[in-house]
């Protein structure tokens, strides 16, 4: 049914994540975090102007004039309201003062544990991933962690990560196809994006799930704002390559 939709997978992911920030006190995003960039930007525009936006360059509450491809770009510092270094943002997390943090995993298992480190054969590294950046600290100490992942397949969503880069306070997992919530010790399907079906999701998920309703679709207001701010479709960049 995807031909009928007037929005992309990136759009519904961004909008879904933005709505999760309606009551957030602050939100942190890291490197290579394009979709969180748009989600935080949209949430501040539409739902939660007092949301404190924290990022790697360490400028609080930037007002980017356009969407950069790099999420440590100077646009993340543009017209910020104060300077808090990355080390100090990690300290905030360590003190339990980070409310929402966006993290991602190349592999994410049924417990919400994730791997950004590597795949090994037990003795040597077969595939080296980028590394978890600040994930281990952030995931264990922030109040609510939102994982996002633009790929939804069994390689990503598996029974158990061989290598755990980070784990902890996972709150939601927003994928290209669904939203999971962390409920007790495991991930539970919360909603399915309207372009796909429960059967397809079962097919692409490496752990057991139960049926769930569709994810609420983006509104015209949300889509209009995103398109106006991002005419070059930088928000699609995580779906490329």
């Amino acid at each position, binding site marked *: 049914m995807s031909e009928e939709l007037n929005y992309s997978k990136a759009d519904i992911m961004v909008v879904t994540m933005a709505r999760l920030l309606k009551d957030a006190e602050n939100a942190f995003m890291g490197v290579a975090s394009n979709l969180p960039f748009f989600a935080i930007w949209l949430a501040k525009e539409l739902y939660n102007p007092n949301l404190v936006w924290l990022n790697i*360059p360490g400028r609080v509450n930037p007002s980017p004039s356009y969407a950069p491809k790099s999420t440590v770009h100077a646009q993340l*510092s543009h017209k910020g309201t104060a300077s808090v270094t990355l080390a100090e943002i*990690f300290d905030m*997390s360590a003190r339990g003062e980070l409310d929402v943090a966006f993290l991602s995993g190349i592999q994410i298992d049924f417990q919400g544990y994730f791997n950004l*480190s590597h795949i090994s054969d037990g003795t040597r590294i077969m595939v080296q991933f*980028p590394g978890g950046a*600040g994930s*281990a*600290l952030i995931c264990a100490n922030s109040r609510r962690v939102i994982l996002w992942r633009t790929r939804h397949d069994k390689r990503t969503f598996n029974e158990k990560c061989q290598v755990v*880069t980070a784990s902890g306070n996972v709150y939601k997992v927003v994928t290209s196809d669904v939203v999971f919530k962390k409920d007790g010790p495991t991930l539970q399907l919360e909603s399915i994006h309207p372009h796909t079906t429960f059967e397809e999701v079962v097919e692409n998920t490496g752990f057991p799930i139960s049926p769930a309703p569709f994810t609420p679709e983006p509104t015209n207001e949300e889509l209009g704002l995103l398109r106006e701010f991002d005419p070059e479709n930088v928000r699609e960049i995580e779906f490329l390559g």
Partner: protein
Amino acid sequence: MGKVNTLEQAGALVNDRDRLAMGGLLLQRIPGAFTRELARQGKRGLKVMKTAANYDFDLLCLAGCVDEIAAGFVSFEAEFGFAPNFRRSVQEGRVKFDENSCYTVIAALRAAAYGVPFMPIANLGESYLASKFKTVNNPYGNGDGDVLTVPAIYPDWAVLHVQKSDEDGNAIIYGPVFEDLIMARAAKKIILTTEKIVPLTEIQEDIDLAAIPGFKVEAVVEIPNGAFPGACQPNYDYSPESVEEYLTIKDNGALAEYLEKNNP
């Protein structure tokens, strides 16, 4: 005062097997020109560290300069993909990747800066990273559990690129400092490349930002565009074309040509 050197002289200060904390983050205000000089001089066995890196560490892998990388993240961002030479070097066992959480790099540098053998940190959850570190008993606790610690790492050099320095190395970073100032304090000595060498009076106009003191600086080299292909805000942004060009290098010949062409 004798600290103003050529890039070649500054590079010669670094010995094989030295440990370098390299400033900037990803493609922001990195010591790009100095990294290429290390490659041209054929350094071997370097140990490098930073929270999140791509071009500089990837190039040092390609050129065979590094043995060990301590970092939280080594990758380009979405448009460029992973760091290919880093990946290959680690997968082929030529480089040891000591994966950290970015915060444990910071904690290791803080410990060095404060002259103590370790730094306590908050917990790292259930993680293979947590298992790299040791715990101690909280001497002020009520037996309420152990505290995770990170051992100090003392870099021989902090290698930083800045917007402005005087000839003694009294220097100013404008915009995000990333981990540069912690590196400057943790390292034994500092090597600076700077967009511009300015008179001390110009440093004094922004003295509250002059957080790099000349007395720890061993070399200052003026290199306009010295963060290339990275950004040095507000002077210039990173060059996507040049990063793409770098990523096409496949062999030593192409690398030598690249290093020749991009000097500094």
